[in-house]
Structures are given as structure tokens and as C-alpha cells.
């Protein structure tokens, strides 16, 4: 296992109390695995991604253990995480445009970034140029300011920068959402090639778009209201989902070939619970078509068949 997360809880501090955005998640990511992380807005998927890299001031670590390559990550301590961030675990944020310093040429920014980690900038130049070639950026982007690059170019530049030190784990948070379909495909395929070239060992790709994950991910993890609902190999999640939420979610997605006139898709009635004071037991209970008495107890996230995990009493 490259990454092992055990019972991680991260809450947000608000005036009204703690928002339980990430409420006890346990999962592993294998070497070379691209794990897709899907869920609706507010389900805690970005909180999970961010908490593995950097806590923002509103986030509060409650409990849980994160191990990367057998070493425990001190995720609750932003200063201690400096030893791991960028070298061992790195993130590509959603808005690449705001990830680059607008007042520096990209080459200079890169040099400063690497130097801040105690690595002489000139030692990485050959590798940097090789990777720019690989993603189809000309080498003179290093002499340009971020404003001179298009959205797709900036996204590719940030991807090269985030992975230049070959981190074990890369977190890609909604990096394809703001792009056009054609650029989206190129960026998604680039993620796969970074893994294939060994620039990163494993990857967590966070998105609300399950169809993108179907194209590139090895496994898909579905989150609902701060908890994991299901994790399984991509093909199983798409073709044979077990958790009622995953089933309804997958069946509500329109795709090319499905027409309103011929087959009417249905959404999921109701809305997710507020995480300020979530109900006890299964959090999908109120919207679930097969819920029963038993669902007042919280279902454990268990392996129902090899490599297929789900948190539901009805499938265990």
C-alpha cells in the first residue's frame, strides 16, 4: 500500500459549531493506483484531498492516521508537513490560474520553488525540459509570465511543477472541470501518462464527473455526506455498483446515446443532510429506497468481495 488512511476525521470550525466534513474515512491506495474520488458538492471530497496536503486555518484535525510509504504523515502540523509536501505528496489545485505567481516569470518561480526545498535549481533543469516536451509545452514558457499562457497551458505547467520532484502521491482536485472537452481529454490522459512514466507513484483524482473517472481511474471511491459509501475497481462501480447511493447516482447520469424521449432518467429525491449536526446511523437513510430499522445504526465500511468495499447494511 502506497497510502493508508485510517479513521480520518477533519471538522470545520464555524460559529454555529463543528461541520463534520470528513467523518471517519478508512481506505488505501495501492502502488501505481489512480483512485478516482467522486461525490456531490459538500460531500467532503476536497476536504479529504486538502487534508492530506495542507490544512487551511478553518480545518480542525480530530483523529485518524495517514501513512505514506510506511511513514506517518503529521497532517495536523503544517510546519512538520513541509518535509513531505511537494517531495512526497503534492497537489494540483482546481484553479491552476491562481496557483502560479503572476509577478514572476515561470522559470524563476520554478527555481525559487525548488530552492526552497533545498535543491539546487540547475539540477532539475534537464528533467524539467524533458517533461515540458512530454506535455507539449515549448521550453520558452519558462521565460514567460503566467498571464501569457492559456488556461490549458497553465494547467499543464502546474502539473509539471507539482510532480517535478517525483512525489509518491499526487492529488488532482477538479483539474478538468473548468476546461473545454478537448483540453479536458488531453489533461486527463496526461495524468495517466505521469503515472505510467513513474513521475508519481499513485494518484487521487477528485472530481464530480464520474464519466471522466471511468476513462482514467483504476478504482473509484464514492463519498456521501462526509463518509465513504463505496470503493471498487472502476468497472464494478460503473457496471455493478452495490451501495444504493452509487446505484442511483450512476443511473441518473445522462450519456451519449440515452434520449429523454426513449428512456427517462430519474434523479435522487431529497438532499444530503447538513453536516453541522448529521443524523446518527446511515447518512443516506432519508433518501434511500431500501432503508429499514437497521439503518439507524451506522453501517461499517467493509469489504463485500475482493477489492470491493461498501458501507451499507443491505449489501454486507
Amino acid at each position, binding site marked *: 500500500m502506497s497510502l493508508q488512511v485510517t479513521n480520518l476525521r477533519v471538522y470545520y470550525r464555524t460559529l454555529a459549531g463543528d461541520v463534520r466534513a470528513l467523518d471517519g474515512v478508512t481506505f488505501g491506495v495501492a502502488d501505481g493506483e489512480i483512485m478516482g474520488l467522486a461525490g*456531490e*458538492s459538500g460531500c467532503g471530497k476536497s476536504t479529504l484531498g486538502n487534508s492530506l496536503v495542507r490544512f487551511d486555518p478553518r480545518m480542525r484535525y480530530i483523529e485518524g492516521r495517514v501513512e505514506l510509504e510506511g511513514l506517518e504523515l503529521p497532517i495536523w502540523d503544517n510546519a512538520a508537513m513541509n518535509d513531505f509536501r511537494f517531495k512526497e505528496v503534492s497537489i494540483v489545485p482546481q484553479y491552476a490560474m491562481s496557483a502560479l505567481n503572476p509577478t514572476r516569470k515561470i522559470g524563476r518561480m520554478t527555481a525559487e520553488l525548488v530552492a526552497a526545498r533545498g535543491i539546487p535549481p540547475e539540477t532539475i533543469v534537464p528533467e524539467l525540459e524533458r517533461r515540458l516536451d512530454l506535455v507539449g509545452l515549448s521550453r520558452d514558457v519558462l521565460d514567460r509570465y503566467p498571464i501569457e499562457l492559456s488556461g490549458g497551458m497553465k494547467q499543464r505547467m502546474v502539473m509539471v511543477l507539482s510532480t517535478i520532484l517525483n512525489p509518491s502521491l499526487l492529488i488532482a482536485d477538479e483539474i478538468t472541470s473548468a476546461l*473545454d*472537452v*478537448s483540453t*479536458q*481529454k488531453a489533461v*486527463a*490522459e496526461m495524468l495517466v501518462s505521469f503515472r505510467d512514466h513513474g513521475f508519481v507513484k499513485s494518484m487521487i483524482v477528485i472530481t*464530480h*464527473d*464520474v*464519466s*471522466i473517472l*471511468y*476513462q482514467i481511474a483504476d478504482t473509484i471511491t464514492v463519498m456521501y455526506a462526509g463518509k465513504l459509501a463505496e470503493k471498487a475497481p472502476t468497472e464494478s462501480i*460503473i*457496471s455493478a455498483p452495490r451501495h444504493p447511493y452509487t446505484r*442511483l*447516482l*450512476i443511473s*441518473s*447520469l*445522462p*450519456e*451519449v*446515446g*440515452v*434520449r*429523454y424521449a426513449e428512456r*427517462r*432518467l*430519474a*434523479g*435522487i429525491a431529497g*438532499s444530503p443532510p447538513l453536516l453541522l449536526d448529521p443524523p446518527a446511523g446511515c447518512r443516506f437513510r432519508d433518501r434511500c429506497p431500501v432503508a429499514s430499522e437497521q439503518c439507524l445504526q451506522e453501517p461499517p465500511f467493509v469489504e463485500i468481495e475482493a477489492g470491493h468495499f461498501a458501507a451499507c447494511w443491505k449489501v454486507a
Partner: protein
Amino acid sequence: MLTLDRVSKVYKVGTFGGKDLPAVRGVSFEMGPGEVVSLIGESGSGKTTVGKMILRLISVTTGRISIDGTDIATLGGDGLRAYYRTVQGVFQDPFSSFNPMYKADHVLGMMRRQYFSGLADADWLAKVEASLQAVNLDPGQTLHKYPHQLSGGQLQRLLVARALLLDIRYLVADEIISMLDASTRIDVLNLLGELRERGLGILFITHDLSLGNYISDRTVILRRGNVVEMGATAKVFGNPLHPYSRMLIAAAPQLHRKWAAVAAELGAGGGPRPEGCLFHRLYPPDRPAGADGERPTLARAEDDHFVGCVRLDGEGACS
């Protein structure tokens, strides 16, 4: 019938508006009642500009948009008010369409002042309830709430309900479900289907091919302001003719087919078809122009399926 006839829009950009930025170039299509037309394009294709021109939020540079034969640019005063009773729009971001200081039903109240000032309270309430019913909203759960107390899907449906207060015949829906979550977006999409069955014509503007394919009867594909292909949705998606449409369909992520499989099906990664530019085979460059001196920008490939030139600017030979 809502008709666009060679509509173009040129924005003035730069200091003192010194530069021209053509956003829409010679777009023509028609939309009848009871029909969903999806306008598909990537960012910068001019799809939102087309919607705004239909709603008269911006002017047309050249060309003509007409409703049942009347040029909408000539409307003013009562005529314009009558037009807005017929055509309304709903936009992408439901959260910024509402004033957070007012309760969500404030948007309905504004309609009343504008269009129904003579209506008695009881009649008005009946009207509001009927239109909320049409969008599957429970009046008790939505009226007298602030925008932040409602979900994105509820707000978006409330905006559709606002448009339905008038006896509209056409709705311009610009990316109305892009910001909604997967489990609720399909409900808003189905709502459009139900309204269509009641005789409403809907212009569904989107960048998402699978949504356009799901809901629309006809599809118009825009690229940099030009229509590259249009026709019956089943024909455009089943047999895409223009290299750009083929590329779009090959790049759209699908749920049960991998990119490689779709590309193989379309042949050569969704690139151009081997026989070259279909437009100019159907409409050779040396063929004389029409009676009014205009050359068409689209050629009819089959019944209800039209394709444009491979070259964007359409000048001269293309292959």
C-alpha cells in the same frame, strides 16, 4: 416560430473599442414551439451571445432575429413588453440570480409589478401556485425562504417558474444545469422535457454533449461563432459529418465506453473524414451565389442534417 437569419455579432474591445472581436458569424436556425434545440459549443464559441441576442440583452450587428415574422430589433415599448411575455431566459448561476437580501420569491413579486399590476391577490396566488406546480416545487417549502435556504436545483426551478408566470412560448436556458449536482440536475433536465411536451420551445445552451443529446430534438454545433453542423439530434450524434463535431464527440467522456473505443468507432480518432470537405462537395465553390448574392454557409447532407465547410472562415477552397 423564432427565426435567426444570418445573425452576426461583433464586439468592440480594447481601449476606446478600437478592435473588433467577431463572436457570432452568420448563424441561421429556426426554433418552433414544442421543440428543444440544443446549442452546443466550447468556451468562446458564441453560444451565450446567441442566447443574449435572442433575449435582446445585446444588439445584433448584422442579420435578423424574428418572431413569427416580426424583427425583434424593431420592437420597443409595448411591443417589447409583449415580446418578453413570449420569450424569457434562465441563466447558469442560480446563486447570483437572486438578491440575498430578499426572500427568494422577491423575483416573483418583481414580475407582478412589471406585468400583472392589475391582478387581484387571490388570482395572483393561484397563478404563482400553478407555475410552481409546473416546476414540481412545493409552495410551502419555497415561498418566504431566503435564497441560501434553498438548494441550487430549487432556485433554478424557481427561476423557470418565474418565466412560466407569463405565457411564454420560448425559453432560453443558458447552461442552467452546469452548476447543479448530478443527482438533482437530471430533475431539472426532465422538467425541460415536460415543458416541451406542453408546447414550449426551448433553446438549451450547453457545453455538455451528453446533456444536449439527452434532451434535444435538434442540435446546433457552434465553433468560433460559426455553425459547423446542425440537424436532428439523432443524426448529428449518430453520424457526425464535420471534423470538429467528430472531435467533440470523440473527446466527450462517456460512462460505458472508453475514449479509445469511441475514437475507433469514428475512425482515426474522430479526425476528418477521408473524402475531404463535404460542404464543398455538396456546394462547389464555383457554383453561382443565390439570387440575393449570398452564399450559403451550410450544405444539406441529408434530410434535416446540414454541414459547414471544414475551413472556419469559409473563404476559397478548403481541400
